[in-house]
C-alpha cells in the first residue's frame, strides 16, 4: 500500500480519473484505431518513452546531454547483433544491451562530472562520444559497418524473439512508457529525486549541504542510459535495420530532446504532451507537403512550429495546459 500511496499522494482526484481513463483508452486503442492510427500512436509512445528517459538527466538532474543516440545505438546494435549472429533472442540480449549502454553512460558521465564539465561543455562531450562511436561502428564488421545490419523480416508472430506485427510492438512500447512514467514519479518523490532537483537548481549549494553530487549525477546518467538502451532495442526490432549514420546521428539525439523540452522540462507529463504535439505536427506537415510535392517543406513547417513554440511557450506546453485546466502539476 505504501508504494501506491507514494504514487498517488498529493495528486488531485480528477487527475487520477483522467490518468485511469487515458490508460483504458490506450489499452483499447488497437481495437479503436486503424493501421495508420496505430502506427502514429506507436511513434507517440516511443518518443514519450525516450523523452522520459532523457528528462531524467536534463529535467531532473539538470545535465544537458545531446548524445543520447549513443545509448540507443549501442543498445540496439548489441541486441540486434546477438540475435543476428548467435540467435540469442532480445529478451536475453536486452540485458547485455542495457549493461553495455550503462557502461557507456558511466564512462561519459564519470569523465564529464569528474572534471566538472557543465552546461554546453558537457553537452559537447556527449556529442563527441556519440560521433566517435558512430565512426567506430561505421568501420566495425561485426555490426555490419556502414552497410548496416538487417534483421530478417518475419511475418509469423514469435513473441519469444520479439518478432511480430505492430500490435506486439504497440503493447511492448506501451508497457515501457507506462512503466517509465511510474518509475519517474517514484524517483521524483524519493530522496534521490530531491537531491537531483537540488543539484539542478544549484550544484554548489547542494554540494555544500552534503548532497553526494557526483554519485547522484552518475545514478541519473546510468538510469537514463539504461532506459534509452531499451528504446534502442525496441527500435531495432521494430524497424529491422540499423545504420551507424542514423543510429548514432546527432539528429537522433536531438529528436530525443524535443518532446521533453517542448512539453515541459522536468515535468512528468511534459515528454508525453511533447510527443503528442511533435508527432501530430509531423504527420500533419507530411500530409501538407505531399500536396505541394516539395522536399524539405515538411521540415520548414516543423522548424517554424518549433520557433513559435519556443518563442511563446519557452517553459513548455504542459505547464501551461496544467495551469489552465487545473491538473496541478508544476515544474518542480
Amino acid at each position, binding site marked *: 500500500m505504501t508504494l501506491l500511496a507514494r504514487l498517488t499522494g498529493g495528486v488531485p482526484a480528477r487527475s487520477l480519473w483522467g490518468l485511469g481513463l487515458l490508460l483504458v483508452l490506450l489499452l483499447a486503442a488497437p481495437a479503436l484505431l486503424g493501421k495508420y492510427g496505430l502506427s502514429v500512436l506507436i511513434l507517440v509512445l516511443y518518443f514519450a518513452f525516450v523523452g522520459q528517459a532523457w528528462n531524467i538527466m536534463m529535467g531532473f538532474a539538470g545535465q544537458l546531454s545531446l548524445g543520447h543516440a549513443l545509448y540507443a545505438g549501442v543498445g540496439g546494435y548489441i541486441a540486434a547483433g546477438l540475435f543476428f549472429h548467435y540467435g540469442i533472442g532480445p529478451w536475453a540480449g536486452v540485458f547485455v544491451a542495457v549493461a553495455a549502454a550503462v557502461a557507456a553512460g558511466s564512462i561519459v558521465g564519470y569523465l564529464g562530472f569528474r572534471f566538472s564539465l557543465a552546461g554546453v*561543455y558537457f*553537452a559537447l562531450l556527449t*556529442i*563527441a562520444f556519440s560521433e566517435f562511436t558512430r565512426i567506430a561502428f561505421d568501420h566495425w564488421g561485426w555490426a555490419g559497418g556502414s552497410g548496416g545490419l538487417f534483421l530478417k523480416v518475419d511475418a509469423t508472430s514469435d513473441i519469444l524473439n520479439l518478432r511480430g506485427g505492430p500490435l506486439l510492438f504497440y503493447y511492448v512500447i506501451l508497457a515501457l512508457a507506462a512503466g517509465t512514467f511510474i518509475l519517474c514519479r517514484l524517483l521524483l518523490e524519493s530522496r534521490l529525486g530531491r537531491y537531483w532537483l537540488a543539484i539542478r537548481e544549484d550544484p554548489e549549494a547542494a554540494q555544500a549541504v552534503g548532497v553526494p553530487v557526483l554519485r547522484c549525477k552518475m545514478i541519473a546518467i546510468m538510469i537514463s542510459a539504461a532506459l534509452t538502451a531499451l528504446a534502442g532495442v525496441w527500435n531495432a526490432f521494430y524497424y529491422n535495420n540499423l545504420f551507424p549514420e542514423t543510429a548514432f546521428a546527432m539528429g537522433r539525439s536531438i529528436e530525443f530532446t524535443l518532446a521533453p523540452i517542448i512539453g515541459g522540462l522536468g515535468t512528468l507529463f511534459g515528454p508525453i504532451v511533447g510527443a503528442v504535439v511533435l508527432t501530430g505536427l509531423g504527420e500533419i506537415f507530411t500530409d501538407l507537403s505531399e500536396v505541394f510535392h516539395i522536399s524539405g517543406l515538411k*521540415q520548414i513547417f*516543423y*522548424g*517554424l512550429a518549433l520557433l513559435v513554440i519556443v518563442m511563446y511557450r*519557452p517553459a513548455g506546453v504542459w505547464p501551461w495546459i496544467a495551469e489552465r485546466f487545473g491538473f496541478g502539476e508544476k515544474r518542480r
Partner: protein
Amino acid sequence: MTADFLLSLAQAITKGLLTGMVYGLMALGLSVIFGVMRVVNFAHGEMMVVGMYLAWMGFEYLQVSPMLSLPVIAVIFFGAGYALQRAVISPFIGRPEHQQFLLLLAIAILLVNVSLVIAGPDSRGVQMDSQFESYELGPFVFDAVRVHAALTAVVIAGLLWLFFTRTRIGKSIRAAADNNLGALVVGLDVRRLYAFTFGVGAACVGAAGALMITIIPVTPFLAAEYTLLAFVIVIVGGLGSMTGALAGGLLIGVSEAVAGLLLQPSLKSMVSFGILILVLLLRPQGLFGKSGP
C-alpha cells in the same frame, strides 16, 4: 620512412594548414558570438552552408567569382545577423541553455531546408580556372585556390582584430563582453552592441562560406557537419578566444589532412572528436582560453 612519404606528409600538412585557415575564420564567428553574449550558435554550420550557396549562385547565375562576391555576402550576412539578433534571439539572452538551443535549432532547420528547397539536394560547386593552377616552392606544390582562400581568411581575421582593438564600437563590444552591467552603467546600448556582434559573427561565417565553395562543393547535408566542426575548433582553441579559434582551425585542418593520409579518409573526423574529448577533459578552457568554463 621514405623521402616520398615525408614529402606527401608535408604536403598534407600544408594543405591542412591552408584549409584550416578557412575553418578558423568560420569558427571565429562562433567564438565571437559566444564570447560576447554567451549564446551558442547551433545554426552555425547552416549559416556556413547558406554562405556557400550564395557564392555558388553568384557564380552560376551572375558569373561573379566567389572572391568578388565575398564582400557582398559578408554585408548581407551582417545585416541578416543583426536583424535576427534584434528580432528573435535578443529575448533569449541569459535564458536557460536548452531554450537557446531549441531556438537556434529551429533556425538551423529553417535555414538548411530553405536551402534544400531552393537549390535541391545535389552537390553544387564552382568551376574556375584557378582550381587547376598551383604554386610551386621547391618540392612543394600548393593549390592556388587554397592559397587564395587562406590568405583572404588571414586578411579578414586581421581586419576583425583591428575592428575589436581600434574602433570605438569594437572596444564597446569588448567592454560589454567583459562586464555587462558596467557597460550598461556607463551608458552603452548593450542590445545594439549584441546585434552588431551577431552581425559580425555572421559576416565571418558568410565570408568563410564564400571561400569554402572554391575548395569543395556544397550540399545541404554538410550543415550539421560544419556545426560540429566549428564546435570542435572553438572548444579546442578556447571558446571566446579569437587566437584560439584560428589556432584550433589550423590544428583541426592539419589533423584531418594527416588522418586522411595515414588512416582512411572516413576516419578523419574520429581524430577531431578524439582531440575534442581530450581537450574537454584535460584543459576544458581550451588551448588558448584564459579561465575555466
